[in-house]
């Protein structure tokens, strides 16, 4: 069902891969587009776009309860993606894969449902200082509701977590540790085995925000032994509006439903309603059928190239970019952890990140600027925001050259 790359180690032909992404072949402000905003959302290969078209032109229908042929075809395709994600994340069972809108939706589901059942007054929830707002605010709201407390793992100067501080924070009161696999602002890959082991020793559960990991890091939720893993399709070459939550069966079964409505029930009556089994218990309403069907092709794309090969190309780009950035006067790299995904944030002394973003856009280079939805992290570095370049498999060194050249011109002008 899933296309898996045969030779696992190979050098990718980037120019051939670029042909699968029609969006890349355009000019922005009269210059060739260099899309370095991949941590915000990746572009989509033809096979994903084609899957949407095939679905809508071929067998669109509402799923699960329909018994006519189109409904059966749509249901089959939809459920195939569940199997493919189950393999992609290496969950024990396919029923542990719940379809959601994306990472934010997945985390809200856990904060609300797990929180409702398992978080009580006086409990503690640990998040890291690297987290995206989506992995902070749901826990803040839960903590306020339940009179629980939020504890924060501090971040070291290079963007790594302070694990010793974490090990002091954790205690019998800790019920949940919520950390990302990789930081969207800095690229830091967190030492999940260490975190998960320490959490499980005190009986705490661990939710991993995998938004930034899926496109870059080989995943295995069983060997990680995390309790929840949240992902967004649009961050790994898939469509917007679709994502998933992995959760261990025994937890998902004990958790109350999150949203309610069609499909997640077994029987409804005004005297009492019983809920469906997992995963359906957590999938209320008509799902995002087309995008979930197409999501399978995003996984197939990644598998065909091979995550190892993708990561190896991206690491070359990152290294090349860091070298180039280091030649720019007054430029300071933000986030220099030893283990990183292909994200590089930086600031230039005396030049606002907004101006840098605008100037780069003027030459077709798309970067993201601002706090990247990690205000607490920015605050801990004493800055308002950064410029962030994040690379995907289709990026090239000559695109990086254009960015470095643009930065050089800006600095020359501003100083």
């Amino acid at each position, binding site marked *: 069902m899933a296309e898996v790359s045969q030779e696992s180690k190979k050098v990718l032909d980037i120019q051939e891969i670029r042909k699968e992404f029609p969006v890349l072949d355009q000019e922005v402000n009269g210059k060739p587009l260099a899309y370095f905003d991949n941590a915000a959302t990746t572009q989509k290969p033809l096979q994903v776009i084609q899957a949407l078209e095939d679905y809508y032109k071929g067998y669109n229908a509402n799923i*699960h*309860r*329909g*018994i006519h*042929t189109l*409904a*059966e075809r749509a*249901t*089959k395709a939809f*459920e195939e993606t569940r199997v493919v994600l189950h393999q992609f994340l290496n969950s024990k069972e396919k029923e542990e894969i719940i379809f959601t809108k994306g990472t934010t939706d997945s985390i809200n589901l856990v904060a609300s449902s797990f929180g409702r059942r398992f978080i009580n007054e006086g409990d503690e929830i640990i998040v890291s200082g690297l987290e995206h707002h989506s992995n902070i605010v749901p826990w803040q709201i839960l903590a306020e509701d339940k009179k629980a407390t939020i504890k924060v793992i501090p971040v070291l100067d290079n963007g790594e977590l302070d694990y010793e501080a974490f090990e002091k924070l954790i205690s019998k009161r800790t019920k949940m540790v919520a950390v990302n696999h990789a930081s969207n602002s800095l690229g830091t890959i967190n030492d999940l085995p260490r975190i998960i082991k320490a959490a499980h020793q005190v009986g705490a559960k661990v939710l991993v925000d995998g938004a930034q990991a899926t496109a870059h890091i080989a995943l295995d939720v069983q060997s990680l032994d995390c309790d929840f893993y949240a992902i967004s399709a649009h961050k790994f070459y898939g469509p917007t509006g679709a994502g998933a939550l992995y959760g261990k069966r025994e937890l998902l079964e004990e958790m109350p439903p999150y949203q309610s409505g069609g499909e997640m029930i077994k029987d409804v009556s005004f005297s009492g309603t019983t809920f469906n089994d997992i995963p359906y218990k957590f999938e209320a309403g008509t799902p995002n059928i087309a995008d979930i069907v197409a999501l399978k092709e995003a996984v197939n794309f990644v598998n065909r190239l091979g995550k190892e090969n993708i990561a190896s190309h991206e690491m070359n780009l990152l290294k090349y970019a860091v070298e180039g950035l280091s030649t720019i006067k007054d430029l300071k790299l933000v986030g220099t952890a030893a283990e990183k995904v292909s994200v590089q944030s930086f600031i230039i002394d005396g030049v606002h990140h907004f101006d840098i973003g605008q100037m780069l856009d003027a030459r077709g280079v798309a970067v993201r600027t601002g706090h990247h939805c990690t205000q607490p992290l920015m605050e801990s570095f004493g800055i308002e925001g950064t410029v962030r370049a994040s690379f995907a498999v289709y990026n090239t060194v000559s695109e990086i050259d254009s960015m470095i050249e643009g930065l050089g011109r800006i600095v020359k002008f501003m100083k």
Partner: protein
Amino acid sequence: MADSVKDIQDQIIEEFSILDGDMEMTNFYIMELGQKLDPMDEEKKTDDNIVKGCQSKVWLTAWLEENKVFFSADSNTAITKGLVSLLTRIFSGQTPDDIINADLYFPQEIGMDRFIGTQRSNGFGAMIKQMKLYALALKSKIEA
């Protein structure tokens, strides 16, 4: 001795071949077969004997006779009853191992394979699974 699983499947495929793939006729024929299914004892139609995963209800029981497995089944819908009658025809009288190891290719050949893929809307796949589970349980009974 009963025909083999393979032989019976081939007979079924042969019988259906005259319908020439016309699905409407195929459904009519399946319903007809269902009407001929041996009636199931009403007291066996308990919730415990319902096959899970069906939109329509299927009751299914199994027992051993001389180390062969026999099935009795019923359904509240005519087509499902016809489908289950095909399965009991194939499996009743076979050894547990022959059932457990059976490779069912006839659904594909008679155009009914689409009932197998999507377990939630229809119980064909669930029925087959349940029959194999019965066979497994009864096998351990023999061996015990």
